């Protein structure tokens, strides 16, 4: 597909909620008062967490890097964002503190107490090198070192995204100025004030990525910002300004790409896979500041709005400033503050703690009353009205996804393309039954992730188990082979000496003896009367040892289970009993066999025949015993498997229960295999004996 910039395309569905934007654009964009204290989370990107490079008590300057991300092996750049001091002062704490997060997460943070001076890094001399002379790698490193992430809300490390664009062919550099969520005006106000900086940033990115097209996409409700942009763009510049209709979620990455170029990002792929790099306005300005003015990311524009504020507006806020500090400066009316939302009303998340810090992805603080925002109504049954489907920008069937998610049919939901849902909330916005659809989808996605994880883990466990089994068998075989070799040698020496002792002229004519004398001795006819019983005796010794080990293990398991006060020790007791029986059976067999062996070492053939003949009933009896043991072991395995299955089906099973059951299953499987092996060996041992007998 080729991009088509000749017209504005459209995406499916979308909604037009009340904008509420003008309330925060009446006052100019200004810096908020400096806070006394900042809390800087180490995790402020969607990548890896940064590691603190300062200690408690250290003095830090504004703009000083205080936490860095390690570059992993095999990666050119760190997959994460560095953190910089946003004020000067002393590091007072390195602690795990609550951070803004939908799940109320706590995360490691650096706390700086301000000295009130706001001193920049002193040796921060303006570097003389012109950015246009920098190599791409150096540019990327500069951007990475400035700690820039996607400021539109996703928080993806910018240098990583740009590195991807640099590595592949970038056809389209798309600057996202749509800002489609209601209430938010941060990009709008930034554009009104700093359009020139945006153009500078675009020039840096063009220098880096060399795209074929550069497009700024902006919604048509920002006329002032559009005018500023038009003024800033040179007539001969390659930058194209595309004004798109106001329709949520036009600022969604995939939707904006479709709007300006007609291209669709294939399912499961990233924009760069079709040659598109999309960057938010704020991010591009931050890039300009970092590359041209050598300023790391220490502040951002935040829309502070809502009916709980006397002066809703936009601020430059230093990162780490507490929300309360920011809201207070916008004239917080606490009695009206019933809802606090970080981000917009469609995709933002609610917070309950005013002391949380502003972070790199905080584009909006929405402080409002229930009347203004509207408390969600009670969830009613889906009436399949199809309103959700009509507005879904991904053209999904939200009602079907809801049905499958609510009925725990997560795989089915996945087959209805749950993973293409961008969680924009348009469906939930229009649903007349007030179903919190997005919550259902998030939950279903979580469940699917857990399922995939579990499947992977189970697969790994299975592979480990099989490898272990193979190793054990190999070891046992090697041992057996060694012993057989040793025994054969001994036998050879013995029979050789006997042959010499007999040393009669007739002996040479005796086939059996002559071949008996020829080394190496393995499968020769003469030994066939001796070696099977001998071999089986050795194998039985191994089986005996294995059974002893199994008994000991079962005993131990039983003791452990008893210690844990588990209910079903009876199964384990039965197992111990089985192991004991098996051991006894094996001991019986080996007793018989050792008799046979001692009888058969006497060279006379008829005696051997007689001896093996007499031992046959005993052997077959023990064979039967072994078969019974094997069957019992098999049923134990089946039982353990069923138990595990039941536990997995049961929703309230704990991880401990599952693990215990898995251990039980593994034990039973081992037991079964041991029994199977013993049986096979015994069968092998008896067959030749019977043959020689006949």
């Amino acid at each position, binding site marked *: 597909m080729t991009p088509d910039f000749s017209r504005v395309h459209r995406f499916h569905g979308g909604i037009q909620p009340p904008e509420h934007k003008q309330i925060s654009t009446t006052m100019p964009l200004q810096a908020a008062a400096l806070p006394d204290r900042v809390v800087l989370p180490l995790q402020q990107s969607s990548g890896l967490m940064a590691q603190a490079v300062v200690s408690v008590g250290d003095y830090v300057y504004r703009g000083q890097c205080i936490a860095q991300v390690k570059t992993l092996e095999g990666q050119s750049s760190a997959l994460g964002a560095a953190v910089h001091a946003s004020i000067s002062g002393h590091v007072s704490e390195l602690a795990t503190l609550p951070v803004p997060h939908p799940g109320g997460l706590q995360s490691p943070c650096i706390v700086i107490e301000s000295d009130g001076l706001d001193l920049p890094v002193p040796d921060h001399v303006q570097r003389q090198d012109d950015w246009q002379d920098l190599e791409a790698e150096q540019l990327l490193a500069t951007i990475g070192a400035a700690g820039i992430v996607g400021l539109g809300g996703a928080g993806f490390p910018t240098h990583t995204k740009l590195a991807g664009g640099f590595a592949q062919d970038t056809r389209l550099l798309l600057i996202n100025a749509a800002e489609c969520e209601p209430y938010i005006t941060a990009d709008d106000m930034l554009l009104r004030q700093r359009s020139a900086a945006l153009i500078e940033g675009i020039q840096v990115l063009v220098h880096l990525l060399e795209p074929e097209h550069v497009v700024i996409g902006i919604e048509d409700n920002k006329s002032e910002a559009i005018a500023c942009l038009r003024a800033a763009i040179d007539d001969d510049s390659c930058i194209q300004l595309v004004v798109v209709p106001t329709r949520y979620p036009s600022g969604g990455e995939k939707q904006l790409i479709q709007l300006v170029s007609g291209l*669709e990002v294939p399912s499961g792929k990233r924009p760069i896979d079709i040659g598109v790099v999309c960057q938010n306005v704020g991010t591009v300005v931050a890039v300009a500041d970092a590359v041209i003015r050598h300023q790391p990311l220490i502040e951002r524009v935040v829309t502070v709005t809502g009916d709980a504020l006397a002066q809703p507006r936009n601020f430059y806020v230093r990162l780490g400033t507490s929300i309360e500090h920011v809201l207070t400066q916008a004239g917080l009316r606490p009695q009206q503050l019933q809802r606090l939302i970080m981000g917009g009303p469609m995709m933002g998340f609610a917070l309950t703690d005013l002391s949380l810090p502003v972070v790199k992805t905080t584009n909006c603080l929405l402080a409002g009353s229930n009347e203004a925002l509207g408390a969600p109504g009670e969830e009613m049954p889906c009436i399949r009205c199809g309103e959700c489907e009509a507005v879904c920008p991904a053209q999904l069937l939200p009602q079907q996804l809801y049905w499958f998610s609510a009925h725990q049919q997560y795989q089915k939901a996945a087959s209805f393309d*749950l993973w293409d849902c961008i969680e924009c909330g348009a469906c939930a916005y229009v649903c007349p039954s007030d179903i919190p659809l997005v919550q259902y989808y998030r939950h279903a996605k979580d469940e699917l992730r857990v399922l995939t994880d579990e499947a992977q883990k189970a697969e790994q466990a299975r592979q480990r188990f099989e490898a272990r089994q193979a190793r054990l068998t190999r070891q046992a075989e090697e041992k057996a082979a060694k012993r057989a070799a040793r025994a054969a040698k001994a036998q050879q020496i013995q029979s050789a000496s006997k042959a010499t002792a007999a040393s009669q002229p007739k002996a040479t004519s005796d086939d059996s003896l002559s071949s008996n004398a020829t080394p190496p001795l393995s499968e020769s006819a003469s030994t066939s009367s001796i070696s099977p019983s001998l071999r089986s005796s050795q194998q039985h010794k191994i089986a005996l040892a294995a059974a002893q080990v199994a008994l000991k293990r079962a005993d131990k398991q039983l003791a452990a289970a008893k210690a844990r006060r588990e209910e079903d020790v009876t199964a384990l007791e039965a197992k111990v009993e089985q192991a004991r029986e098996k051991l006894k059976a094996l001991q019986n067999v080996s007793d018989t066999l050792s008799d046979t062996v001692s009888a058969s070492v006497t060279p006379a053939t008829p005696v051997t025949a007689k001896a093996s003949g007499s031992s046959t009933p005993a052997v077959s009896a023990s064979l039967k015993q072994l078969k019974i043991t094997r069957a019992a072991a098999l049923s134990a395995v089946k039982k353990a498997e069923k138990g595990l299955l039941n536990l997995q089906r049961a929703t309230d099973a704990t991880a401990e229960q599952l693990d215990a059951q898995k251990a039980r299953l593994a034990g039973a499987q081992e037991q079964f295999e041991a029994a199977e092996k013993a049986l096979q060996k015994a069968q092998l041992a008896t067959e030749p004996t019977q043959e020689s007998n006949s």
Partner: protein
Amino acid sequence: MLSLFAAPHSHVPRRMPQVMRQVMFAMLPGIIGLTIAFGPGILVNLLLSMVTALLTEAWILRLRHRPVGKTLTDGSAVVTGMLLAVALPAIAPWWIPVLGTFFAVAVTKQLFGGLGQNPFNPAMAAYAFLLISFPLEMSLWPQPFEWHIAGFSWYETADAVTGATPLDAFRHKGMLTAEEFWQQPQLLSPDMVLAWEWVALGWALGGVWLLWQRVIHWQAPVGMLSALSLLAAFFYGVDPSHYASPWFHWVSGATLLSAFFIVTDPVSGATSRLGQCFFGIGVGILVYVIRTWGNYPDAVAFAVLLMNFAAPTIDYYTRPRVHGHRKAQRGLKQKDSAP
């Protein structure tokens, strides 16, 4: 105290109870038309149906241990009762609307799991049930405009004044050609036709208002009406002496009532816009076929019920192409896509 809610934090103002109120409001012109033409009996039916609907719903929710107040106020049961009542003959005995509404709410709706779960349109299922069980009572349409003269005594002589609906009359025209049929006022009085035209106009007014309010969408009504008109026009064009004109099909029976209020029922219809279009077309075709060659004079109820059967299949075959996918997944066989 700050409260936690999940995103999105704002919602379109319209919710289900409002939707139901709008539907009730949109029925007013049609109800007025019916009342002018066939007398206040229609209002009695309405009242009986609405009360029965509420009582039945409350009783069954009680039995099922579901919250009564919340579900009653959603208005869906009342709308079901009203839709049935306006389809019933104006002078049907009192127990017809009561029994019918009870059937609609208790059997077709609640037995299947309540709101949103019923595969069949409750009002139409109840109508079909009544028509099959009590064909006589279901044909008690009075002569139009006569109650103005007769006043309330008119009810006592109701049996004497019942007249055939236009559809019924046309179906029983026997060997007469259409032209001859229209010349026999004793077979079908011009008043009757006029009355039904007024009623149809009432439904159309309400329907257009619903469309304008975006309570319903154009796909199903347009699908149904165009399929019906095309078929009618074709046969009328081929043999106007035996087939009724498209206009006749539009204004007679429950055509416009069902186009705007029945085939647009979200629960028992197809769910996607494209699917709704197919659903409407299906109803339109079936209505024509049953009316013309079937045994029942009006076919809307059966046509809708048959299409209700087909709705899930329609849904499977009208799945949209998801953003970023080359092709739409359609058909009953689903391939599983990896997460």
